[in-house]
């Protein structure tokens, strides 16, 4: 029983991390309806940047990390200005393809700049693990859990009540109308990309600290798709919840698998089965807004 319990705790903790990445998807989607296939590379860029600051400049984590976030903010804006701005008003699917191009580009660039070998993060926390409910958990996971909750609350408020948040939603709904209201579509996009890049960096650093940084981290970008969808594409809280659910599901599936079924690989596949079932019942995920179907 303790195994099951520990797995559940682990699921929640890892799920929170998925939630952070999922959130960074949702941010871009909410402002532009773009699915960013380069999200994984954002993660990677964040992780490498932080790693570089910490190893080459010997900065302490508490300085290096905020600098990383600031850098990612700028990076998001620059990326938007240079690459995505000309695509405003073009079919969304073409923009999605551009993000695929970006992913190829940055993947190679990171390998070029930082090499192909996995590199360890310097020790950051005095005690690398914390005991939560009987399970030893990497401290950095706890950090990401806390940050993700803060970010989530922040964005919940932002999209519901702030003027910019409303403008972002309007832009996503209809760019032309948004422009007619005096909203600068460019600014909105730049903002969403910047924030999203920043949020992914949080996840990137977390994963990097745990596993070491390597190009393969970018795989997280695709891994969280089920979480995003489960929560509902345009819901920030949903993203986090979706992440938690996927995290728990993985661990639960692994439990069933290892204890009884022995099919292997269940932890990877089971979330997808559950995803389909949930979507058949709730076609817009748990918190997604329904499309308005009127004639």
């Amino acid at each position: 029983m303790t195994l099951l319990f520990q797995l559940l705790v682990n699921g929640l903790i890892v799920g929170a991390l998925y939630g952070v990445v999922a959130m960074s998807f949702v941010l871009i989607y909410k402002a532009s309806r773009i699915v960013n296939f380069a999200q994984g590379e954002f993660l990677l860029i964040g992780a490498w940047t932080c790693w570089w600051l910490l190893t080459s400049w010997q900065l302490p984590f508490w300085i290096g990390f905020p600098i990383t976030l600031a850098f990612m903010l700028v990076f998001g804006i620059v990326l938007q200005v240079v690459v995505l701005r000309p695509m405003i008003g073009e079919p969304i699917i073409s923009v999605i393809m551009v993000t695929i191009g970006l992913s190829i580009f940055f993947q190679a660039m990171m390998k070029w700049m930082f090499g192909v070998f996995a590199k360890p993060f310097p020790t950051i926390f005095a005690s690398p693990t914390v005991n939560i409910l009987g399970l030893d958990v990497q401290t950095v996971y706890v950090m990401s859990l806390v940050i993700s909750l803060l970010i989530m609350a922040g964005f919940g408020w932002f999209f519901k009540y702030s003027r910019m948040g409303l403008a972002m939603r309007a832009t996503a709904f209809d760019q032309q109308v948004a422009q007619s209201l005096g909203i600068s579509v460019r600014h909105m996009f730049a903002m969403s990309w910047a924030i999203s890049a920043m949020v992914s960096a949080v996840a990137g650093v977390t994963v990097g600290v745990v596993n070491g940084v390597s190009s393969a981290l970018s795989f997280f970008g695709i891994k969280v798709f089920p979480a995003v969808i489960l929560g509902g594409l345009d819901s920030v809280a949903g993203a986090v919840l979706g992440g938690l659910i996927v995290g728990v599901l993985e661990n639960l599936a692994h439990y069933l698998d290892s204890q009884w079924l022995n099919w292997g690989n269940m932890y990877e596949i089971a979330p997808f089965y559950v995803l389909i079932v949930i979507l058949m019942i709730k076609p817009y995920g748990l918190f997604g807004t329904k499309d308005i179907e009127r004639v």
Partner: protein
Amino acid sequence: MANISLIPCGDFKTRYAADTTIFPTRTSRNFAILGVALLLLCPAFMDRYWLNLCIQIGYLGIAALGLNILVGFTGQISIGHAAFFGFGAFSSAWLSNSFGIPVALAIPLAGVMTTAVGMLFGIPAARLKGLYLAIATLAAQYILQDFFSRADWFTGGTAGTIAEPFSLFGYAFDTDESFFYVVLVYVVVMYILATNLMRSRDGRALVAVRDHYLSAEIMGINLTKYRTMSFGISSFYAGIGGALYAHYLQFVSVEGFTILFSIQFLGMIIIGGLGSIMGSLMGTAFMVLLPEVMQAITTALSGTAIDAALNLREAIAFLREMAIGLVIILFLVFEPDGLAHRWKQIKAYWKLYPFSH
């Protein structure tokens, strides 16, 4: 995706039949026939490298067309196409290995089997839309991939399976030169079938579902049926493409059918032009040739003064990959509607010349 609604000058049709042909003019039709005839001669003057690229473009082009029917014509994004492609490959190998069905027959049968699987995974399409559906297809990708590595009886498990070479009347098409013809026939047939489909009732219905499904339903179109069917048709194409791939390589392994491959398929049709039949082939050619061109440039560069000056050596592999990403980005920035669109504009330009404005 705005279209130009001009009718070129000199386009006067007196019969409806003449107005529904595949090729708008006699010249264009003759050109197409000439083109195919020229292709028939390819093996005579192309080496295996080029033939191989043509063959790749061929079988991938068939599968890409299937995806275009699903994404471009019906508006349902799929990020699981590679899995269906793989299913076709395994099916065909399985049919010919386990039941001794001749490969020539196994390929279409594999297409049918894949159709069935595609429709199964298309069921969520009845309820899901847009990206929600896209992610459901992502689930199909993972579930099928998992199935491939598990189903020893069907796929040979993770070890993979051998596929017989294509043969007809005792003649084995096991060289690039001969297999080229097999692929060519399939490409021509499959592309004509798709063209026909799109100009008849069910094809129109698919497009209607894409453009405005609510009014399509009120026009008498059964949404569930067509959405699922679209998955079926698309999988059929994927299955045929996959089967050709299997009998070309004569070996099929799970490793080949990953999510990245699925994304590449999406790239082919977006770059080619969504909702364009010939665009699918153009996009495939683009995606297949791009790395080759970059490789050629890389090879040409290495050892030259530039290489020495910049000390590229190790960097060059990464620069090449970056260039591939960059070309895709730039292409889309300048031609977001895809190759087919540009092609159309070029044609329109010449037809309307000198009144192109």
